[in-house]
């Protein structure tokens, strides 16, 4: 079966005086099957959120998607759609929820209004029917006393509740793909697990695919089928979740794992990756990670392609060649 979403060589360009143009997203390719969850993992500034926005053509100006990129949703090239058709994709086929539930809801409208707005945008249904759907969605995302919450304003709800409302709004268009951009980063730890659990359960019941964007490898296990690790605008390692956790291969991925505290295994020191992701204008030639990499490879000055390290496991590192 063909994948639901196929992203090929996605590149986002921002004008830059010194260099003539930078690519914060630089040749990202991945596929997403129906019902599958793919986690996109990386530090702040690696281009993961921008990649997600690009899928919906919401790259903030003056950025734009470079020609040669392709985002194919079930046979349709999203990047070639006119505005009207694009609006029928946004929300209806691909929905997105954002990081901060405090600012993702419009402060002057009730929760009910914001859900029915999306229902009305995509379905020709009478008002009462839209309201019934909104109520059903609020129940589905686990909001207690949903009937009275329909008329609540966002400021009357807690952060966790607001994120649930955001999810209900995203589901209102009955999308095939849900993009969750750091859906739990702004929430309390106890609420994070609940929201992730809810997302996973809704994905299963609605038969959606999910693109889960996170900087936290800890929430990936058990929730994503596959993981793509991003660094400096590129995917540097891609594998099934099991394979990645069993054998993180790219030095960057290994660094990410070493910097996360573990509950099992011997007690050791956390090993932070030195430095931060450089801005796109300062990316080194060749391997982008070489300025922070503990390993110096003879071919670091050349950009490595995605190389196979195992079945359905590849990485953008010359070490893969040596291992074979």
């Amino acid at each position, binding site marked *: 079966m063909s994948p639901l979403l196929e992203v090929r060589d996605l590149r986002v360009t921002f004008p830059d005086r010194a260099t003539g143009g930078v690519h914060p997203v630089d040749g990202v390719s991945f596929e997403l099957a129906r019902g599958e969850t793919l986690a996109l993992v990386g530090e702040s500034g690696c281009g993961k959120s921008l990649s997600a*926005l690009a899928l919906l053509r919401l790259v903030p100006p003056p950025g734009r998607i470079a020609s040669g990129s392709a985002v194919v949703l079930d046979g349709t090239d999203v990047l070639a759609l006119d*505005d009207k058709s694009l609006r029928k994709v*946004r*929300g209806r086929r691909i929905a997105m*929820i954002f990081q901060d539930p405090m600012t993702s*809801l419009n402060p002057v*409208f*009730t929760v009910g209004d914001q859900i029915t707005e999306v229902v009305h*945008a995509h379905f020709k249904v009478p008002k009462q029917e839209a309201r019934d759907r909104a109520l059903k969605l609020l129940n589905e995302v686990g909001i207690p006393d949903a009937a009275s919450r329909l008329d609540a304003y966002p400021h009357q709800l807690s952060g966790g509740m607001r994120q649930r409302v955001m999810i209900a*709004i995203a589901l209102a268009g009955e999308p095939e793909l849900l993009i969750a951009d750091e859906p739990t980063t702004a929430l309390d730890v106890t609420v994070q697990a609940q929201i992730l659990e809810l997302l996973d359960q809704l994905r299963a019941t609605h038969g959606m695919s999910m693109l889960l964007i996170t900087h936290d490898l800890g929430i990936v296990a058990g929730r994503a089928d596959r993981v793509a690790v991003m660094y400096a605008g590129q995917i540097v390692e891609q594998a099934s979740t099991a394979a990645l956790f069993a054998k993180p291969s790219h030095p960057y991925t290994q660094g990410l794992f070493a910097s996360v505290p573990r509950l099992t295994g011997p007690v050791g020191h956390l090993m932070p990756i030195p430095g931060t992701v450089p801005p796109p204008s300062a990316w080194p030639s060749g391997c982008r990670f070489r300025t922070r990499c503990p390993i110096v490879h003879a071919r670091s000055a050349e950009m490595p392609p995605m190389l196979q390290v195992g079945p359905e496991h590849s990485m953008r590192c010359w070490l893969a060649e040596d291992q074979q």
Partner: protein
Amino acid sequence: MTAPAPSLLRRTMRVANGRAGAVALVVIALFALAAPLALPDPATQFDIVDGALRPPSAIHPFGTDHLSRDVLSRVANGARISLAVAVIAVALSITLGAVVGLVAGFFGGVTDTIVMRVVDGAMAIPRLFLLLLLVAAWDRLPLAALILVIGATGWLGTSRLVRAEVLRLREAEFVRSAQALGAGARRVMFRHLLPNTIGPLAVAAMLGVGDVILLEAGLSFLGLGVRPPTPSWGGMILEGKDVLQAAPWVSLFPGLAIVATVLAINLFGEALHRAAESRSS
């Protein structure tokens, strides 16, 4: 659509000045609406021989003017005209300003640059000067045209205000979220951005009404605004000018009406401004 206007209003009323302004405005509005019905029609009560320029008395609490018309009755009728002119003109300029500000702020780039440079240029021309020119060029300007001209010259400040708000809100996550869920430009502008600028817009409208009352009074005093015999406060002061020493009440009472109304509007507007600010911060 239920914007949190009630809570903004409630917050405004919590301030003493806001309450005082609101009460005064309600009294003035009722006076403008009801008093002309109860009082004799000034247009028909000419009693030139012995009724002219009578000082205030039980029958004529504000006295009579040189055409022996009841000043109280004229002030009440003038309130209708002056307030109507101000409210309609401000409604017009607020609408224009909001649309221009929304478009410039939302689309940004070249659109924004062109629109806002035009606004900057237009702002360099003093409004009163422009109005005098327009009004002088057109002999016997109809009332509707006067309203139109005042409204069409008053939107510049509002457009800047709304644009600034839109620039701030455009990056808000709820705007991106609405777009991600399929809202087009028009829906984002009018359904998501505009309602979030209601606070500053209400303040601008309120203070704008005060400005326009003064502006219209000024024009009418110069004989370029509302034309006699239609009563307006500014026009009445002009009519009383020649008898200012012999019969000061002819000018005094419309003058007091202007002061009271503008004061009430500014008190309320200022309280509204504070309420809107405290909400956004």
